[in-house]
C-alpha cells in the first residue's frame, strides 16, 4: 500500500476507546506500559534492598539474637500466608490469561479471588501483629515481652534472660513485613479498581495492559514474601 492509502485506511478505522492520544496503536501502548512497570519493579527491588541490607548487617553481627527471636514467630502462620500469596499469584496470572482470551466471567472471578486472598493474607498478618503487640513485643525501645508470650517459647529458651537488643530484631521485622503489608494493601486497591473496570467490560484481547501490569506488581509482592518467609520464620 502507498502512504496515502495507509493514511486513508487509518482514518477509516475507528480509534480504540482506551488508546491514548500520543500512541500510534494499542501495541505501542501495551509495550510502553510493560517497560514502565518493569522499571518500577526494578526500583522496588532496590527499595527493599535497603531493608534486606539492614537485616543482613544485623543478622551477620547478632546471629544468636535471630536464633532466639524467631521463636516469637509462628512458622505455621508464615507458611499459611506463603500458600495464600502463591494462590493469589495464580489467580492474578489467571486473570491476565482470561483478559487476553476475552473471557469476561473468568476475568471477574479471578480478580475477585485475588482480592479475597490478599484480604486473607492481611487478616493473618493482623492476627500475628495483634498477638505480638498485645503482649508487649513492639519494636525498638517498646519491646518488653510479657510473661504470657515468654511462656509460649520452647522450654530451653524460657530459662534464658530476654536479650537487651530484642527490640532491634522486631524493628527490622515490623519494618520489612510492614512495608510488604503496605504493598499488599496497595495491591488490593489496584485489584478493586480492576474489578470495577472489568465489570464495566473494559478489558479484552486488544486491551489487557492494566490487568497485566497490576498482576506483574502483584507477583513482585509475592516474590518479596518468598524471601521474607524463610528469613524471619525459618531461622534454624
Amino acid at each position, binding site marked *: 500500500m502507498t502512504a496515502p492509502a495507509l493514511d486513508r485506511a487509518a482514518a477509516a478505522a475507528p480509534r480504540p476507546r482506551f488508546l491514548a492520544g500520543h500512541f500510534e496503536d494499542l501495541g505501542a501502548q501495551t509495550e510502553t506500559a510493560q517497560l514502565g512497570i518493569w522499571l518500577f519493579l526494578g526500583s522496588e527491588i532496590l527499595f527493599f534492598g535497603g531493608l534486606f541490607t539492614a537485616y543482613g*548487617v544485623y543478622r*551477620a553481627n547478632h546471629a544468636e539474637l535471630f536464633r532466639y527471636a524467631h521463636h516469637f514467630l509462628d512458622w505455621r502462620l508464615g507458611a499459611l500466608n506463603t500458600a495464600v500469596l502463591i494462590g493469589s499469584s495464580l489467580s492474578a496470572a489467571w486473570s491476565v490469561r482470561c483478559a487476553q482470551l476475552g473471557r469476561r466471567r473468568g476475568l471477574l472471578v479471578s480478580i475477585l479471588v485475588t482480592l479475597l486472598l490478599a484480604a486473607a493474607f492481611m487478616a493473618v498478618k493482623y492476627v500475628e501483629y495483634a498477638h505480638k503487640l498485645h503482649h508487649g513485643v513492639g519494636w525498638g525501645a517498646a519491646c518488653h515481652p510479657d510473661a504470657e508470650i515468654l511462656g509460649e517459647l520452647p522450654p530451653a529458651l524460657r530459662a534464658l534472660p530476654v536479650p537487651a537488643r530484642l527490640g532491634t530484631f522486631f524493628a527490622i521485622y515490623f519494618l520489612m513485613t510492614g512495608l510488604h503489608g503496605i504493598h499488599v494493601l496497595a495491591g488490593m486497591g489496584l485489584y478493586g479498581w480492576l474489578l470495577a473496570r472489568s465489570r464495566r467490560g473494559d478489558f479484552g484481547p486488544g486491551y489487557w495492559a492494566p490487568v497485566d501490569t497490576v498482576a*506483574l506488581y502483584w507477583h513482585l509482592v509475592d516474590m518479596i514474601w518468598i524471601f521474607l518467609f524463610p528469613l524471619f520464620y525459618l531461622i534454624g
Partner: protein
Amino acid sequence: MEEPTTRSDPRAAHVVPASTLLATAAALLGLTALTVGVSRLDLGPGNAAVALAIACAKASVVALFFMHLKYERRFQRVILVASVLFAALFVTFVVFDTTQYQPDLRARERLTPAAPGASAPAPRR
C-alpha cells in the same frame, strides 16, 4: 473493531497455557514445603544458604512463568536481573564491611570502661 496493526498487536500476545500456570503454582507450593522441611534439619550455617537458594529458585519460577518473562523480549529480563544483582551487591559488600570491623569494635568495647548499659564508643579526638 478494526485496528491498525503494527509490530506488536496485543491480540497476538503469547497467552500462558493454563497447564503451565497450574504447574507453576504446584512447584511453588512444593518448594515451600521443601524449605519448611529443610529448616528442621541442623545444617549449621548451611541452613541459611539452602533457604536462600530455595527462595531464589521460587522467585525465578515466579518471574519466568507468572510474570511471563520466559516469553518476553530480553530487555525486561535485563531490568530484573540488573536490579537483583545490584541489590545483592549492596547487601554483600555492606555485610563484608560490617563483619570486618567487628573485631576492632569488640576490642574497643573491652578497653573502654563502659558505663552500665552503654556501649557507645567514646568520641574520638
